[in-house]
Structures are given as C-alpha cells and as structure tokens.
C-alpha cells in the first residue's frame, strides 16, 4: 500500500515534469527547427513541423557574412568577467549586511532595490556621457563596469538572504579557531551558500548575456559589439531574416545549456549540498 502510493506519486511527478518540459521546449524546438529551414520554407503556410530540406545556410550566413563570431566572444568575455566581479563584490557585501552590525542596513537594502528599479531607457543616455568622459566608450571595461554595478543589487539581496539561512555555529567555530574574517567568509560561509552563489551567478550571467540597450549605446564599434546588438544588425529595414536570427540565437543559447550540462554534478550539488544539514 505504501509502496504503491509512492510509485503513483513518482509517476505524477514525472508526468508533471514532462508537461513542463514540453511547454518550455516547444518554442525552443520551433526556433531550432526553423533555423534549418531555407527561405522558401520558413514562411510556408501551413508550416512544416520538420524541416523538409534541412540546410546549414542560415548558420553559414550568420557566421561568415556577419561578424557573429566576434559578437559571441565579446558577450562571453563581458558576461564572465562581470559575473565574477558581481559575485566577489556581493558575497562580502551580502555577508556584511546579513551578519555584521552595520548601522542603516534597512535603508541600504532599500536603496539597492531603488537603484535596480530605475528604467534602463532613462539611464542609457547619461551612462553614455559618463563613459565618454572616462574614455571608456567602445571598450570591454566600460560595459563590464556598468553590468557589474547594475547586477550587484540583485546579487546582494539574494546572497544576503541565503547567508541569513546559514546557522551561526560554524562561523563561531571558525572565529574561535582564529580564522581571519575574509577566510571565514571564503572557506566557511561561501561553501554553505552554494545554492545562493549559483543562483546569483546564473542570473547575473544571463542578465549580462541578454542586455541590449546599454551595449547598443556604449559600444558602437563593430569589434566591441555584443551578441544581442549583433543580432539587431541582421537583415535590413524591411526584412526580418528569421532563419539567420534563429540560427544565431540557437548558437547563442547553446553555451548556457552546455555549461549547465557539463557542470551537471556541480549544479545539482550546488543546489543541494549547501542545504542545511541538521
């Protein structure tokens, strides 16, 4: 009776997971399938569920006729560096705001929230002025700096939240053992907050990876353009080359999937090992 109960529940879980997977994957499938369709097939009516004469043309076009390779590398570089910076800044700030006796924590947290709620469209032009004055237009560091600043608030919020969930005993043991504060954070706190670090990292990375308006405004030179901007250059005024866009988008989505799959173990343990063990 009890076993049957469990088995049934397991099946329901699997069914639900399948339904979720289908809802999430269907549009992605459609994007990937369309990226292999030739120009005559991409607008077919009714659409073909499977590319009848699959072709790599769209991929060739994205990578040879356009500088998509450069854009992709720029995006990778900017997003990775910004993510590392955000994590290192926010881990310490989040810890201080969670555990250490700072005055004015509440106002600080709210101020961070307020900064993230100002619409990007209003920030683009002043940021341009700012970066022009430092001479960081058309550079990596300009974009990295801005992305870091814009993503620290969320990372601090989420990391602080996770730090608050870690029992204090372990830190206390570290203090008693005479570990330095930095060392305590690095070797005691962070490993315990792995789900938090992982969550913050994923969200920072994707935020940088997909950002359009600021990248468009700050880096106009072709060799510094990032992928979202590069994609907006495909086609011309009256054409939307869905094939090329989807080919490029499929490629741009792959690194994330690969990252998660390659580090599958780390991801899963990142989301479980940190769990508080009684």
């Amino acid at each position, binding site marked *: 009776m009890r076993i049957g109960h469990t088995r049934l529940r397991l099946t329901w879980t699997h069914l639900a997971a399948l339904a979720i997977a289908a809802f999430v994957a269907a549009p992605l499938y459609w994007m990937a399938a369309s990226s292999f369709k030739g120009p005559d097939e991409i607008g077919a009516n009714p659409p073909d569920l499977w590319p009848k004469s699959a072709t790599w043309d769209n991929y060739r076009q994205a990578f040879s006729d356009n500088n998509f390779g450069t854009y992709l590398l720029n995006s990778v570089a900017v997003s990775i560096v910004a993510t590392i910076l955000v994590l290192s800044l926010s881990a310490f700030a989040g810890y201080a705001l969670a555990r250490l006796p700072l005055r004015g924590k509440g106002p600080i947290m709210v101020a961070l929230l307020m900064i993230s709620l100002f619409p990007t469209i209003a920030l683009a032009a002043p940021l341009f002025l700012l970066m*022009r*004055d430092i001479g960081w237009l*058309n550079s990596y560091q300009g974009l990295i700096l801005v992305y870091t600043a814009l993503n620290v608030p969320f990372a601090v919020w989420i990391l602080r939240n996770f730090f608050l969930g870690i029992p204090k005993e372990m830190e206390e043991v570290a203090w008693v053992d005479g570990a330095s504060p930095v060392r305590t954070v690095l070797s005691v706190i962070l490993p315990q907050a792995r789900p938090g670090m992982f969550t913050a990292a994923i969200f920072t990375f994707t935020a940088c990876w997909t950002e359009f308006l600021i990248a468009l405004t700050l880096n106009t030179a072709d060799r510094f353009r990032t992928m979202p901007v590069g994609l907006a*250059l495909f086609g011309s*005024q009256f*054409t939307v080359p869905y094939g090329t866009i989807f080919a490029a988008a499929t490629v741009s989505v792959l690194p994330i999937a690969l990252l998660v799959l390659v580090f599958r173990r780390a991801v899963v343990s990142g989301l479980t090992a940190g769990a508080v063990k009684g």
Partner: protein
Amino acid sequence: MSIRRAAALCAVPVLLAAAACGSGVGSAAVDPRDVGPASGAITWYAINFGPEGLPQKLIDAFEKEHPDISVTYQAAPNNTDTMRATLTTEISGGSGSIDVFSSDVIWPAQFGRADLAMPLDEHLPDDFWDRYPEERARLAEYQGEHVAAPFYADAGFLYYRKDLLEKHDLPVPRTWQELAETAKTIQDAGDVRYGYVGQWANYEGLSVNWLELTAAAGGRVVTEDRERCAIDSEENRRVLDFMRRMLDEGIAPSASTSFQEPQSLQTFIEGDAVFHRNWGYGFGESNNPEVSAIAGKVGIAPLPAFEGGEHPGPSGTGGWNLMVNPHSESIGAVLTFIEWMTGDRAQRMLAENAVLPTVSDVLNDKELQREDPVLAIAADVPTVARPAVIPRYAQVSYGIFSNINASLAGSTPPDAALREACDDIQRALEGDAL
C-alpha cells in the same frame, strides 16, 4: 580589482565632468572655411540597404576614385527607431566617432530642430541641389536650409498576381474599389486565400499606407498651413470605412492589423494574396525564385486611385538621406563622400542594384528604366510626402497610426477613431502631446 579601484577613484571627478558636459558646451557649428582637407578616415553609419554587401561595394568604388579618403561602413540596427536612438545619444553626447550617417526621409525637421545634423548649404555649391527633383530636395530642408542630402529613394507600389488576373480575364484595377471587387471575385473562385495585404500594424508604416489612401481620396491629415488637424473629414471617413470593409469581407486578412512589411510580403510571396502594397524592394523579392513561390507571376503597377479620383493614386515617399554629424572632424572628406554618393556613378550603381536613385538624371534614364520596371514607374507616379516638415511629426504620426490601427482592430468605432486622431494630432501640433 583595478576596475573597482578605478571606479572609486573616478567617481567624483567624473560626476562633475559629466554634469558639466551634460549642461551643454558651446555650439558645434563648423565655420565654412574650416572644413578641413578632403582626406583622412571617416565612418559612415547606415542601415543595411540593397543586396548584401552593396554599401561596401559603393565604398570600394569611392575609395578607388578618392585614395586619400578611407571610409568605414558601420552597420546600424535594422530598426529605424533603434538607429535613431543610437544616433541621438551619440551626437547629443558630443561624440564625433560617426562622421556621416544615413537618415530616414522623415528626420530632417526633427534632427534640424535638435541641432543633430550639420546644415549643408554653406558647404555645398548652390547648384548641388539641382540634381534632385524639386520635391525631393525640399524634403531635406529644415527652416529653409538643407540639413540632409537625399541618397536613395523609395515609393509605394501595387504588386499583383499576373497569372490570376489573366485566368479570370480581369484588368489591373485602377481604383481601390475595383481592386476590392477583383480580389473578391478571385477569392470566391477559390484561387487564393486573401485579396489584399498592406502594412496596417501599429507603426509608422500604417501612416504611410493611410496617407496614400487618403491622398487618393482627397483627404488630408493636417491643414495646408500645418496649423490644424484635418483628419476628421468626410473623405477620410470613406477611406477608413473602406479599409474596415476589406477586413470585414476577408479581402484583407484580419491579421493585417499586425502586419509590417516583412509579414505582408511573406503572405504575398507564399501565394496567399492577389494584391500587395509595398516598397520598391518588393518586386525583386517576390520574383526571386529562391524565396518566392510566385516568382515570375508578379506584376507591378502604380497605386490605384480612390473612386472618382485621378489615376494613378499617389505613392508614399520613402528613402534615406545622408546627414553630417556636427562633431565630425573630417568635414572636408565627408563632403567629398556626399558629393560622390549623390553623383552619377554611385546613383547608377544603386539603380543597377534595384535601389531607387534620388538624382533626376539617373531616375529618368530610359535605358535603366527599360531594365527595371520599378524605376520606370517610380519616375512617373505622383507622390505624397508625410508631413515631416513638422518637427513634431513623430507625435502627429502616432496620432494617425495608433487611432487608425485601433479602429481597424475593432477597438474603436470609425467616427470616434477619427475624432480622437484629430485631438491627438492637434495636441501634437500645439506641442502638448506626450
């Protein structure tokens, strides 16, 4: 680490400097004698046009004739609004990294008013403008001064299915009403799904479609002196009713209210519509066997008249100009570039690549016209320009397309839509619109 330190160090001085910069430093107008030599490196920021690689081909040809000047082509986003946003930020931010840029035919007044384009009259010879048809040159003016040099043109055309008209032994329609009837006949025979597709989505393109129709019907959007709205008129009511009837009777697909150029073209080249209104590129695209299911079966004609009006109906004016960034430090080279791009050689290259030239000589060249029916029609059709000489044209246009689109989508009854459009346009003219 260094970034963090640098940011901390820079913060205060940077804030002050940027604020100072933000509050405006002097005018950037260039003294005519100080344009610099016609040499050096310049950057041309342009939205993609023509067949793949055409901008670079033009540059190569230019550099061959002007070895002292090197030009970098910087592709702009393929969305006009996004491109305008980048340009505005760059130029008003004082950047000279773009020297010369392509600009939409509706930008001169807006850019002129905001001081974002360098006035050209002092720098170009008076007879420079004689190369263009008068109307085209006038569209590049702001307050009597040229702020842009017309580069390539565009116009609205009617594309039709030759095979279907032949099959039913019907002529190419000369009025919109006739077009609707013809379409209905062919649809009823089960030969095609839809009768007509145009661009009726909620965007600038609908303003063009609307102006073409209303101009044919004798309607206006603003009064001649551009002081008052004139959209709420009997003529325009007829046009709106006509458009809605096309939707109601299924002549135009109900999805039309979300169609821009790519969607309407796609519907047409899949063989799903008899008639299609689009720009000049539509001819080459719909006759290209690689993308089109109806290649070789497509005819082109001027737009129809509205019942009782003169044939042909007017075509909306499209196309792009060249503008100069007032911050450019290579004005001399830029002027040479503009002179060449609007000269015979470049304009012929455009025409040979199915891009409509702006220069009269090339536009009227019989030889070229024989090879390109689009050019032949473009040279002769009457045109209707958007009232973009109003610096607040963007708001006027919003008043047109948002209300017309809402009415076509069935959200507002036609009389209310025209009344609200009139209110919006009036507020825009008075500088009182958001």
